[in-house]
């Protein structure tokens, strides 16, 4: 386990992330142009989809059945467990609890990729169809948490006499939110990439492989530098989010991670695949979830959900979480 941790810590990904954090700590002026950040994320998501699609063309539908099912199950359970813990134990307001739960119910593409790279380095590569599962897990968690938030807020509003001049709740129809999440950048690029990859197959993929696969890990390193910078500038908020969220952001991932690993093992995934499913389940989205939450539950405090997803859970998973899920996956598999 220690050796695995060491290898993980000395990976370019973890080190670049730490470099980004350190840059912020020494108050360096270093910043990544927003356009580079956007370009890298477009590249990474599309590359992920394409590779997934090409590999999906080798998979049979029957192989996919159980993994798909447990993935959807995790997408439904994780926002609910998150909400309950935050509301009941953490005593967060309805909106804050639902807002944070939307993040932990969805999935972080970068955490997914990092776990995929990790198991590959460990010589336990995950199944080729894993990106398909990511696209299935991205959206339900957000929808469910936002629905909980909307219903609870409405119920509370009905319970008290409205004050004079109180702002009317923003008229944000669910269909608009659903449309935004389903046609969001990450969905289009990953699902679109999957289909393109599936249609074009191995042979057509060959000439674009040096670009989409050869550059992948390097581009990801640069991306993690930026993630480190972003997380680093949120470190100051750690104080204001409180101890509870610090605990939540590290314990909840482990619970969801173990759940994911067990479910993956049960659904027939390999050790690598179960590890990756665990990491997916443990991860908190910070690409698709934040705008959806900001629009639908504007009274939820962004400092809570952004800081816990980006500055607590993401680094936790990258540094400690993934090796842990791998260790558990191996143990369950009896290795």
């Amino acid at each position, binding site marked *: 386990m220690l050796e695995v941790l060491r290898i993980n810590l000395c990976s370019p990904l973890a080190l670049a992330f730490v470099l980004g954090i350190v840059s912020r700590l020494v108050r360096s002026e270093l910043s990544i142009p927003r356009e580079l950040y956007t370009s890298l994320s477009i590249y990474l998501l599309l590359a992920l989809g394409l590779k997934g699609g090409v590999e999906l063309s080798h998979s049979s539908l029957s192989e996919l059945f159980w993994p798909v099912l447990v993935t959807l199950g995790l997408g439904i359970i994780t926002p609910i467990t998150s909400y309950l813990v935050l509301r009941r134990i953490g005593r967060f307001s309805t909106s804050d609890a639902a807002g944070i739960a939307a993040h932990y119910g969805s999935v972080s593409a970068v955490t997914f990729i990092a776990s995929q790279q990790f198991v590959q380095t460990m010589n336990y590569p995950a199944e080729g169809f894993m990106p398909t599962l990511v696209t299935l897990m991205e959206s339900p968690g957000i929808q469910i948490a936002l629905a909980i938030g909307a219903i609870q807020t409405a119920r509370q509003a009905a319970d008290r006499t409205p004050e004079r001049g109180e702002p009317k709740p923003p008229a944000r129809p669910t269909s608009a939110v659903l449309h935004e999440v389903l046609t969001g950048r990450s969905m289009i690029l990953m699902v679109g990439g999957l289909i393109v990859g599936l249609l074009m197959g191995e042979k057509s993929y060959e000439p674009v492989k040096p670009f989409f696969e050869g550059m992948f890990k390097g581009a990801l390193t640069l991306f993690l530098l930026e993630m480190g910078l972003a997380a680093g500038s949120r470190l100051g908020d750690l104080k204001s989010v409180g101890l509870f969220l610090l605990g939540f952001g590290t314990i909840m991932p482990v619970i969801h991670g173990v759940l994911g690993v067990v479910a993956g093992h049960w659904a027939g995934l390999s050790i690598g695949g179960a590890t990756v499913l665990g990491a997916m389940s443990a991860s908190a989205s910070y690409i698709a979830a*934040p705008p959806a939450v900001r629009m639908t539950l504007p009274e939820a405090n*962004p400092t809570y959900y*952004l800081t816990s997803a980006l500055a607590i859970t993401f680094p936790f998973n990258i540094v400690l979480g993934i090796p842990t899920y791998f260790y558990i996956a191996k143990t369950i598999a009896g290795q």
Partner: protein
Amino acid sequence: MHTTPLTLLTIVAEAILKDRLIDELTRAGSKGYTLFECEGSGSRHRRVSELLGANIKLETIVSAAVADKLLEVLAVEYFPQFAVIAYLSPVSVIRGEKYV
């Protein structure tokens, strides 16, 4: 050169509101707008994060009536929950008839 006195309404808000605010402009009767990307800091530090775009500035030249209608909407629906600032300035516009 003949110019028409009109009102320039400027709105600075978090980038996520872009489409919604443009809709509000159109609904209130604005005939056009100009949009800028910007950064900013104010009393609320509620922003969805540097990863997701910073602020936008929307400028629209409208009649005083349309400006007032828009301020109303902003005050009721946006001010309480979003980072936003809005103000009016008097301007003299050429071919100003086009914009009312």
